[in-house]
């Protein structure tokens, strides 16, 4: 079936598949599940950022015989979490490298006794010097990881940057910083584990990637594939925060279950979740850009530095995405990006919606406004002149073969937001008002799927089968955590096969049942996994056609009758498909060159802000998000993804600050880590353009991460429009605005009466 053909189910707002269960309060999240004889588990954590563990003492006033106690010595296999490099210990062994690092695990039937026991384990340390910032790590006088504190570095080069400076009409420089951001999924991390020597380990929990957890458990227990089973329970939000960390918590719960000889549940409370689990990588990005007299980009020299925390986890791939997104959606003949991920002694940073792109897009899109100001050009016009177009090449020399419509998105965004009229109006009204209004934009792209050769390496397998109860089942390890996986994939399967959505169900996300369709990350589910399900559906029909006499057109009853004939003759009715890279996709890891992503989603954000010069606080008053994401599979769900991402991006820009004290998060409570409430989000106008992508599920590209990339630069650009002052760092708090506004002469501040 071609992607542009008329569809019955794809493209319509089918209600969320598991929606009724969620709305009735029936959906079972991990903390809602009890197992017979289950104990509770808790974690003893480090109180210092770095040091040698001299001893672990168990207070003799506690009857430790009642408890299951696990330390590094109890790990039967390898004491390391298996992500990209296996450097993070499952339990600290001899040394700690960040505050809140897990040192010992305890389990007991009574939660209260457990709390008391955790407090009764005393760790004696010999402190070591620690580093907390990119700058401290760069100095390399204290080495906290490897030989040089560097987790990963990349060099991306196109043309010759060094020759471009002398002839340039303008050279504009800037430095941009972004802070740590907490996912703040409303369901904290949690896991239940069971262990027995015959069947091995089973883990249930709140997670994104069953096979990631599976891989770590195999290593930690030294068990073969079939003796490890990971089952995702209903997951109350993730945003990347349940991509890497569940491998840690799953291992912990399983170790306690082994030691206790019974099921063990570990649920973090909010304070523990905030203090001990990963956040978004902080970044510092420097731009130096050569521009000609017409505003055409001549050269971009970019330096990306991220703070990776104490262990490498996913820092290398986050850095890769940051590197590839750092030049923005623009054509430039000479580009150099030097990027590095640095080790520090904080909780390891991990995956978070956007995965390095929001940091990179913040920098380039703030910088574009700085360039425009520097050369005296309208920032809209500057962007328009430099957008990638059909046939142009990106910084990695990827040729734009799919139709690019940034111009059209921009026009639509300007019209819908009435951009120029508002801008003029604010410029007139601001001088007489304590409230300064402004409007700003951000233009950006987001690569769909894994970076470079990632999808090829993943080699995902997914498909459908037909159960004896007469349902088509979608077989994927892709998980639902609010983004709509269940709904989208059942829509695709029912469309491809020619059934109603009610005839298609999702298989339990259980590694004992579903094949490895790869992790549920990187905006890859609709595009990559969706395509596999579409192919598997089509393949199922032709299989039944060839082997079980299914006619060209068929009714529901005829379809299932054919399935029964097939089953009687040939056994299970299953159709699986393996990933096939789109043609002409080549990526050179060595040279860091080629097709960085099979497809891109494109977007323009427009933010209107009001800066109050009495309180220095900023409110986002109105917001427009215009995007091209390939085929929109389900408009209600797609709109919800955009709005949710924009709200999270607004938080990233203006509210969400992690306050550090000696490497520990000091504001680890919801009352002090501030996310936007129902009173803080502006109206969000969401507009789609659709250009179906042949190699995505019914034409879909990625959508989930895109909306988090734009709000921060659009908002800070709007603040510049409102106040005349450039801010280059987020989160931008009223305290920061005060500090710059009172010194800036361009604005009359109430404080200087």
């Amino acid at each position, binding site marked *: 079936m071609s992607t542009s053909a008329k569809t019955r189910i794809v493209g319509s707002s089918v209600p969320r598949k598991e929606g009724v269960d969620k709305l009735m309060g029936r959906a079972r999240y991990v903390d809602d599940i009890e197992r017979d004889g289950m104990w509770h588990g808790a974690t003893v954590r480090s109180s210092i950022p770095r040091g040698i563990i001299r001893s672990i003492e168990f207070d003799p006033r506690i009857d430790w015989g009642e408890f299951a106690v696990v330390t590094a010595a109890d790990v039967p296999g390898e004491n390391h979490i298996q992500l990209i490099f296996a450097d993070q210990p499952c339990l600290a062994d001899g040394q700690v490298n960040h505050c809140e690092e897990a040192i010992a695990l305890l389990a007991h039937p009574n*939660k*209260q006794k457990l*709390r008391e026991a955790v407090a009764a384990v005393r760790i004696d340390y010999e402190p070591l010097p620690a580093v907390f910032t990119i700058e401290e790590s760069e100095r390399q006088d204290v080495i906290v990881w490897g030989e040089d504190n560097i987790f990963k570095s990349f060099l991306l080069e196109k043309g010759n940057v060094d020759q471009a400076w002398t002839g340039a009409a303008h050279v504009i420089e800037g430095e941009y910083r972004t802070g740590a951001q907490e996912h703040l999924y409303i369901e904290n991390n949690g896991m239940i584990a069971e262990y027995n020597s015959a069947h091995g380990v089973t883990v249930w929990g709140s997670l994104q990637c069953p096979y990631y957890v599976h891989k770590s458990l195999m290593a930690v227990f030294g068990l073969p594939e079939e003796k490890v089973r990971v089952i995702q329970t209903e997951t109350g939000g993730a945003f990347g925060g349940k991509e890497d960390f569940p491998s840690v918590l799953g291992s912990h719960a399983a170790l306690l279950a082994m030691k206790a000889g019974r099921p063990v549940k570990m649920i973090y*409370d909010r*304070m523990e979740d905030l203090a001990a689990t990963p956040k978004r990588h902080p970044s510092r990005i420097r731009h130096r850009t050569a521009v000609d007299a017409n505003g055409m980009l001549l050269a971009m020299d970019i330096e990306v530095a991220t703070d990776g925390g104490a262990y490498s986890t996913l820092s290398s791939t986050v850095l890769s995405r940051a590197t590839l997104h750092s030049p923005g959606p623009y054509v430039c003949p000479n580009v150099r990006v030097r990027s590095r991920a640095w080790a520090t002694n904080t909780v390891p940073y991990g995956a978070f919606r956007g995965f390095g792109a929001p940091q990179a897009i913040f920098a380039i899109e703030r910088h574009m406004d700085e360039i425009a100001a520097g050369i005296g050009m309208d920032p809209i016009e500057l962007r328009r002149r430099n957008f990638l177009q059909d046939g142009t090449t990106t910084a990695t020399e990827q040729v734009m073969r799919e139709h690019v419509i940034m111009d059209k998105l921009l026009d639509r965004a300007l019209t819908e937001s009435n951009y120029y009229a508002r801008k003029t109006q604010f410029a007139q009204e601001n001088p007489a008002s*304590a409230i300064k209004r402004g409007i700003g934009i951000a233009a950006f792209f987001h690569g769909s799927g894994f970076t470079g050769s990632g999808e090829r390496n993943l080699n995902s397998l997914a498909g459908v089968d037909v159960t004896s109860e007469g349902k088509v089942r979608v077989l994927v390890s892709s998980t639902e955590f609010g983004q709509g996986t269940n709904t989208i994939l059942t829509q695709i399967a029912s469309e491809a096969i020619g059934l109603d959505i009610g005839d298609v169900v999702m298989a339990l996300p259980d590694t004992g049942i579903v094949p490895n369709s790869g992790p549920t990350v990187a905006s890859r589910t609709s595009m990559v996994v969706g395509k596999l399900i579409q192919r598997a559906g089509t393949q199922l029909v032709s299989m039944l056609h060839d082997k079980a006499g299914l006619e060209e057109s068929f009714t529901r009853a005829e379809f299932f009758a054919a399935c029964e004939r097939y089953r009687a003759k040939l056994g299970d009715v299953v159709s699986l498909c393996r990933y096939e890279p789109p043609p002409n996709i080549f990526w050179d890891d060595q040279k860091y060159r080629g097709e960085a992503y099979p497809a891109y989603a494109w977007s323009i954000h427009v933010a209107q802000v009001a800066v109050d010069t*009495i*309180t*220095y*606080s900023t*409110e986002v008053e109105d917001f427009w998000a215009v995007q091209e994401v390939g085929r929109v599979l389900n408009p209600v769900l797609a709109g919800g993804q955009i709005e949710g991402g924009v709200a999270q991006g607004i938080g990233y820009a203006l*509210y969400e600050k992690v*306050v550090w004290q000696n490497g520990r998060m*000091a*504001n680890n409570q919801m*009352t*002090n880590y*501030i996310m*936007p*409430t*129902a*009173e*803080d989000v502006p109206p969000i106008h969401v507009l789609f353009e659709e250009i179906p992508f042949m190699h995505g599920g019914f034409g879909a590209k990625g959508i989930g991460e895109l909306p988090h990339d734009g709000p921060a630069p659009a908002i800070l650009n709007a603040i510049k429009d409102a106040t005349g002052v450039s801010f280059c760092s987020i989160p931008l708090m*009223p*305290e920061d605005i*005060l500090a710059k506004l*009172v010194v800036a002469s361009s604005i009359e501040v*109430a*404080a200087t*009466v």
Partner: protein
Amino acid sequence: MRGNPEAHELVAPGTLSGVLSMLANEPGKWTPIAGGTELMVAHAAGRLSARCLVSLWGIRDMRFIRAEPDSIAVGAGSTFSDLRNHQAISAEFPLLAKAASWIGSVANQSRATLGGNLANGSPAADSSPALLAYDAQLELISARGTRRVPYAEFHTGYKHNVMAADELLYAVHLPRRFGQHRQYLRKVGTRRAMAISKVALAGCALVEQGTVREIRIGAASIAAYPTRLYRTEDSISGQVLAPETLRAARVSALSEVQPIDDIRSTAEYRRIVIANLLEEFLRSLTGAGGQQ
């Protein structure tokens, strides 16, 4: 849940006299708990030190709003929903109604009591600036009887107040004489809702022919407890609202407030913003129109 429910005793005598006699018999043993929106947070965090608690929730004698000829009496057990939805409060003490609507969210306002807000004594308490501006009197009660103290003299230090171990906060009395006054309140929080104040300022002033006859200014998060800016009031009182008065008032406020740096904000920010709010209030007095 870090606290242990089994480690705490909680009793509910159900009547005011029942609670008072418990407090009288064993002074210092029993900690009152009203809506619990402070104490239950501490409980969940494992920081609730009080072992024996006595419940004030549901005691009718403490939850009332009564209009008397010269004042309105608000029972300490009144919730912020009660205050927010009360006609006379909204009409005559709009700053208090407004403050009530800003305290947490609906689910918090339905439980949080005025007495709990004041007795808890947070420097950031949101009902305080308004009560200071309205010259509220507090009525304390014990088995020994009742006594009144001006609210402005209630707090004596960080989380310290004049109440004796056997006393409860019984009622807040609001004098009904501000019909002609200009009134102002602004809370500066970390976001628009569900926000702890970084600073807040309330003002109530009587202006006649451009001269300030009477003024009270209450502020939160600028000292160890909510307090009036007496020196600043003095600098304005009796003065004509000229630019020099505004400037002098700013200078006075900047020297009078002693805010701190904490995880929510900085002392510098608090100082400057409180001065800005003061100025906004004073400017509103010069113009036409009533309260802000």
